[in-house]
C-alpha cells in the first residue's frame, strides 16, 4: 500500500555526501553524544495536561523533557541532538455504532497511533507503517483490560494519538559514523509508554469508566561506560544517550490492583534460571520491577494532572 494521492519525497531518504575534509580528525571536534545527567532511577520531567482539544470528548497532551547536551551553548530547541517526546491524544466517543454494525456486548475500542511526518529524523509517510500499527495493537492491549467495556454495549470509542516528536532509536551521530547499526527500535518503547499514559489521561478526561488509570513505564539494561563496564539498569532510558541498549521492558501498570495489562520485553535478557550469570545482565524480574517503578512515577504525574483538571471543572461550575 503506497500513498498515491500525494506527491511524496523519496521513501528511503537519501544520504547526503560526506566529504572527508568534514570528518572530524581530532577528538575534540567530534560531536558530543548526549549523556545521561539524571541518576539511574530518575525519570525525565513530564508535562501532562488534559482537555487540550475542545472538540473531542477527551484529550490530553504529554511532553517529556528533551535531553540537553551539557556542553552545547545553543538554547536547545533546534540543537541537533535533542530528542524529547511530544504526544497528543484525542478520544472520540463513546458513540453509537452504525446501524449496519453487528451487535456487540462491549464497547468497541479502536486505537490509532500515527507519527507526524516531521516527528522523526527520517520523514514518515502519511499512511501508517507496520511499526505504527504495532504500537496501535500494543496500546489496544493495554487499554482493553482497563476500560469497563460492558457498560457501553453497541457503542464504539476511538483513541487517536499523534506523535509530534518521537524518540530516536539511536544517537543520530552513530548513523554517520561507525554505526552500531543493529539498533533495534528502542525509541518505540518510550513512545509506547508515553502513549499508554497519555491515552489513560484522555480516557479519564472523556469520562469513560475504568477499573484504574493505567500508566506506562520503561526500564532498560544499558551497556556500562568505559569506567564501569558492568551493565546498568536505568529507568526511562533515552536511546540517544546510551551507546548500546541490551534489553528493555515496558509495562502498562495498574497501581491500585498491582496488575500489568501490557508487557513488552525484548533484547538480550539474562538467564531465567538463576545461576552465576546474573551479574552479567539483569534478569527479567529485575527489569520488569524497574519498569513498574517507572510506571509508578508516571502514575503520580497522571493523577496530579487529572486532579488539576477536576479542580478547574469543579471551580467553574
Amino acid at each position, binding site marked *: *500500500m503506497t500513498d498515491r494521492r500525494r506527491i511524496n519525497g523519496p521513501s528511503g531518504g537519501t544520504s547526503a555526501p*560526506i566529504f572527508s575534509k568534514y*570528518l572530524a580528525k581530532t*577528538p575534540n571536534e*567530534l560531536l558530543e553524544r548526549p549523556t545521561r545527567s539524571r541518576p539511574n532511577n530518575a525519570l525525565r520531567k513530564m508535562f501532562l495536561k488534559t482537555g487540550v482539544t475542545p472538540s473531542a470528548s477527551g484529550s490530553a497532551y504529554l511532553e517529556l523533557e528533551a535531553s540537553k547536551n551539557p556542553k552545547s551553548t545553543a538554547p536547545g530547541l533546534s540543537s541537533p541532538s535533542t530528542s524529547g517526546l511530544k504526544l497528543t491524544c484525542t478520544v472520540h466517543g463513546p458513540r453509537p*455504532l452504525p446501524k449496519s454494525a453487528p451487535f456487540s*456486548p*462491549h464497547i468497541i*475500542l479502536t486505537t490509532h497511533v500515527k507519527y507526524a511526518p516531521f516527528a522523526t529524523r527520517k520523514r514518515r509517510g502519511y499512511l501508517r507503517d*507496520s*511499526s505504527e*500499527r*504495532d504500537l*496501535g*495493537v*500494543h496500546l*489496544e*492491549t493495554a487499554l*482493553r*483490560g*482497563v476500560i*469497563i*467495556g*460492558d457498560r457501553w454495549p453497541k457503542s464504539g470509542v476511538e483513541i487517536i494519538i499523534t506523535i509530534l516528536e518521537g524518540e530516536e532509536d539511536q544517537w543520530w551521530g552513530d548513523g554517520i*559514523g*561507525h*554505526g*552500531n*547499526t*543493529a*539498533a*533495534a527500535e528502542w525509541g518505540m518503547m518510550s513512545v509506547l509508554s508515553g502513549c499508554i499514559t497519555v491515552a489513560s489521561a484522555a480516557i479519564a478526561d472523556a469520562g469513560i469508566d475504568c*477499573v*484504574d488509570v*493505567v500508566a506506562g513505564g520503561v526500564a532498560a539494561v544499558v551497556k556500562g561506560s*568505559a569506567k564501569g563496564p558492568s551493565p546498568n539498569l536505568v529507568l526511562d532510558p533515552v536511546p540517544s544517550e546510551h551507546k548500546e541498549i541490551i534489553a528493555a521492558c515496558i509495562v502498562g501498570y495498574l497501581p491500585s490492583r*498491582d*496488575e*500489568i*495489562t*501490557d*508487557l*513488552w*520485553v*525484548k*533484547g*538480550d*535478557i*539474562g*538467564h*531465567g*534460571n538463576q*545461576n*552465576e*550469570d546474573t551479574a552479567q545482565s539483569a534478569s*527479567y*524480574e529485575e527489569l*520488569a*520491577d524497574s519498569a*513498574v517503578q517507572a510506571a509508578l512515577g508516571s502514575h503520580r504525574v497522571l493523577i496530579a494532572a487529572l486532579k488539576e483538571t477536576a479542580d478547574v471543572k469543579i471551580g467553574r461550575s
Partner: protein
Amino acid sequence: MAPSSALQQVLLSPAELSYLHTSLASTPPIRPDGRTSRQFRPLIAESNILPGTNGSARICFDDGTEAIVGAKAEVEKSRPVFAAREEEGEGEEMAEGQGEGGERGRNEWVDISVEIPGMRDDDSMPVFLSALLSEALLADGGFTRKLWINRRFHWKLYIDILLLSQPLSYPLPLLSLTTHLALLATRLPRLKSEKDEDPMFDDDWEASVFLFPQSQTAKPPATLLVMAVSSNIIFDPSKEELAVAEVVLAVSISSSPSSFTPESEMDVGERKGGSLKLLAVRTIDPPSRLTHPGVPNVVNTATGGTATDNMEMAMAREEGVWKSPRGGAKRKLIAEMIRKVLEKGGVGEEVLDGLEAVGLE
C-alpha cells in the same frame, strides 16, 4: 470497525464459557482435549520441502492448521559505513573490537512477511505476528551477524511465512515453530573469495554451509504461547481455551551458548544446547475480553428476576455465570509463566529439542 480479534471470536455461549473456565481453573486443569497443562498438540513436521529455497519447512497441527515457511537469500551490497571516527581513549578497544565489531549486521538484512488467508497484509494480526517473529530473531544481534559476507556485501534473507489453512487457532506457535525449523534447515553457498573481494561462491550445493551449524549451540528462536486461568498455567492453548484465558503471553526463547562454568559442564552430557535465554515477551490481548457476559437469574427479567440499577449488584460475580475478565495480570503470575518456560527440563527445552530432532532426519 470490527474488533481486531474478531477472528478469534469463538461461538460459545456464556454457560459454555463458564463451564470451560471452571474446568481449566480446577487443579489439575481439565482441558477439553484431554492434554496435560504442558502438553502440545501433536504435529507433523518436515523440512527441506521446497527445492527453490535456501531452507524451508512445513508443520501441520492435528486440528488441520498448516504452515509453510521458505527462506531465500540474496547477495546485496551493503550501505557504506564511514569508519573514520575513533573515539579518544577507546582507540585500542575499537581496534581489537574491529574484527568482531566490523561484522555487525543490520536489522534491514532480514525481511519477514506473514500471509494469512482472508486477511489483508495491513490488518493488525499479520502486522503483529511479523513484528513479534522478527523481534525474536533480531533480539540479540547474533542472527544478522551470520549474514555478513564482507565489508561491502551481505546476505539479504527473505523469510516468507504462509499459513495455508484457515486460522482455526491462534497461529503464532505454528508459524514460529515452522520458521524455526526452516531456519535450522537453511543453507548458504560456501564462500570462495577472500576478505573484501567481490564475493564468489562454490556452486556445489553439497558444499553449502548451514546458517545454524549443528556443531554450534546457537539456534534460531522459538516463540511459545502460554496462557493462565486463575493460577493454572497452560501451554499451547487451543482456540476454545483462549476464549476463557485471563492472561496470554508470547514468550520467545532460544538456547544460549553454554557458559563454561563447572555447573554447565556437568550437564553437557544431557543437553548440549546450554541453558535457555529469554529474547522477548509480549502480552497478547486475550479474546476472552470480547466474549458475551452471562446474566445471573436474579437480575434477569426473563427468569423472574428484577433488573437492578445498583452498580454493585451488576458488577458482582456469581459462580457459574460467565463474566469476561477485567484488569490485567498479577506480576507474580507473569513471572511464574516465564519461569515455567525457561526452567531446566521445562517446556522450552522440550520444544527446542524436539524440533532439532526433525532437522536431523
